[in-house]
């Protein structure tokens, strides 16, 4: 109770909560869930883009894509480390992912079908992620906020690279332009859905009070749409929503109704790649078991030898 009061006061003052600080169990649990989901998303997110590394059409683009996917793995690592400050182990979190008990961003359950998908993921998916994540740079839990600062900086770089890839393709052949339009058609609505349910249907209201979530789903979504429409015009692609239109009165773009049936299907495990993504990660984990065991065994032997030599 005294702790609780101090915690509440720090939250209200906008101070960071640090690992050594007392925190309510629900706060801790919420953070573990959110940070680990975020980490899982980075790790699963390596797969759809990784799918194109071996087929990248130029060495420069192959290098950029490799570096990007590597960054995502790195984000996963910082985020697992941030989660570990809350008293859970990375292996335990990761096993929950592999067992299908933990969630990750549904966007990665859509397939990457042509090279332009790599650009569109940078532009729209990373763009939407950044919108979601910038407020987290000021979230109340210190390690998470600091991880997000680094993540956001790198994501912005990825977003620019994705947009640049698309600009190059749009200046290219008609086939290249068609690929970009096709990719935009497939990724637009899933990107819009990344902001989650409408505020009216949204749960987790405590996250707002605790200073974890600072801006509502619908506000972030609107901000994303407003920013993206102009970029689409510059690119010369059509966003696949006939209802998309500037609303002078609101000072925002109106947009069409979201297909929440699709959203629920994918979140519920029935997206096109849900099974494949987890299967790929599980295969990597199981195939690597003997390697991890050997590393432990060697370290133990080495420790014994070092002791004997000392």
């Amino acid at each position, binding site marked *: 109770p005294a702790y609780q009061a101090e915690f509440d006061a720090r939250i209200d003052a906008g101070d960071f909560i640090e690992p050594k600080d007392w925190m309510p169990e629900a706060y801790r649990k919420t953070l573990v869930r959110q940070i680990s989901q975020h980490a899982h998303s980075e790790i699963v997110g*390596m797969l759809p883009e990784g799918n194109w590394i071996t*087929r990248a*059409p130029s060495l420069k683009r192959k290098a950029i894509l490799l570096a990007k996917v590597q960054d995502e793995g790195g984000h996963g690592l910082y985020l697992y480390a941030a989660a570990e400050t809350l008293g859970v182990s990375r292996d335990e979190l990761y096993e929950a992912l592999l067992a299908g008990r933990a969630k990750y961003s549904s966007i990665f359950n859509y397939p990457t079908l042509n090279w332009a998908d790599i650009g569109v993921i940078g532009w729209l998916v990373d763009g939407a992620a950044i919108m979601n994540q910038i407020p987290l740079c000021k979230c109340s839990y210190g390690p998470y906020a600091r991880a997000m600062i680094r993540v956001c900086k790198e994501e912005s770089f990825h977003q620019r690279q994705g947009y640049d890839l698309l600009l190059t393709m749009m200046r290219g052949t008609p086939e290249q332009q068609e690929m970009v339009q096709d990719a935009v058609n497939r990724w637009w609505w899933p990107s819009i859905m990344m902001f989650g349910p409408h505020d009216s249907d949204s749960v987790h209201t405590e996250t707002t009070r605790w200073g974890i979530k600072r801006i509502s789903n619908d506000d972030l979504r609107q901000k994303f749409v407003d920013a993206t429409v102009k970029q689409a015009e510059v690119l010369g692609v059509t966003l696949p929503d006939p209802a998309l239109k500037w609303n002078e009165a609101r000072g925002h773009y109106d947009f069409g109704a979201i297909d929440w049936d699709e959203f629920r299907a994918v979140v519920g495990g029935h997206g096109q790649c849900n099974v494949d993504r987890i299967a790929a990660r599980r295969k990597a984990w199981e195939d690597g078991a003997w390697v991890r065991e050997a590393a432990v065994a060697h370290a133990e032997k080495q420790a014994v030898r070092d002791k004997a030599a000392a």
Partner: protein
Amino acid sequence: MTQANSANPAHLEYVLRLADNVLILGQRISEWCGHAPVIEEDLALSNMALDLIGQARLLLTHAGRLEGRGRDEDQLAFLRVERDYRNLTLVEVPNQDFGRTVVRNMLFGAFQVVLWERLTASADSELAAIAAKSLKEARYHFSHAAEWVVRLGDGTALSHDKVQAALDELWPYTNEFFASDETDAAAAAAGIGPASNTLEADWENAVLPVLAQATLVAPARTPFKTFGKFGRHSEHMGHLLATMQYMQRTYPGAQW
């Protein structure tokens, strides 16, 4: 005997061999991205692939200038027919498991360290500069792989057996490292770089201590022969190229 538009065809050939080794191994290693036994290795292997592709870009650009037909790094990387690739066969064989990957990286990494060291003194100043940059990377690649070979060799009984089996399978491909021909001789005579048959002792000095520490047995040399660096590859190469070249073959002339 330096720089662009060399009149010496062996010079171009010599540089292409260097380029294709790192190009093709970079391609193989990039297949690991997202599939490694721990995330740290996803990162380490991606990083190694990045280094190798970076080296390939420099070397292919240099080769394109030596060739003098206006081909850039991508035309050379993606639009040659299989017979015109000059990589060692070892770098094109499939990754299979992580143990086999680190054994290959160790065997090849040691070779690269020895070779780049010599090439820092190349009469081709561009090549010497690439060697200086690549040597640092190769040292890291070698030591990273060597550490894993030791961990796996000296780990569990299972890991020991797996990595010994990988070594037995891959070792014969290292015969090709040291096979010399006229290209080698001409390059050596011109001071461009060492002949392959002068590298074996230094390579063994790098590799054998790792094997000893890993409690692994170096296989005996056999008459097994491969010819990748002369343009005759294994059955694996065509499949690798089908994937790697797909976009460039399907959309000829497009810019990316």
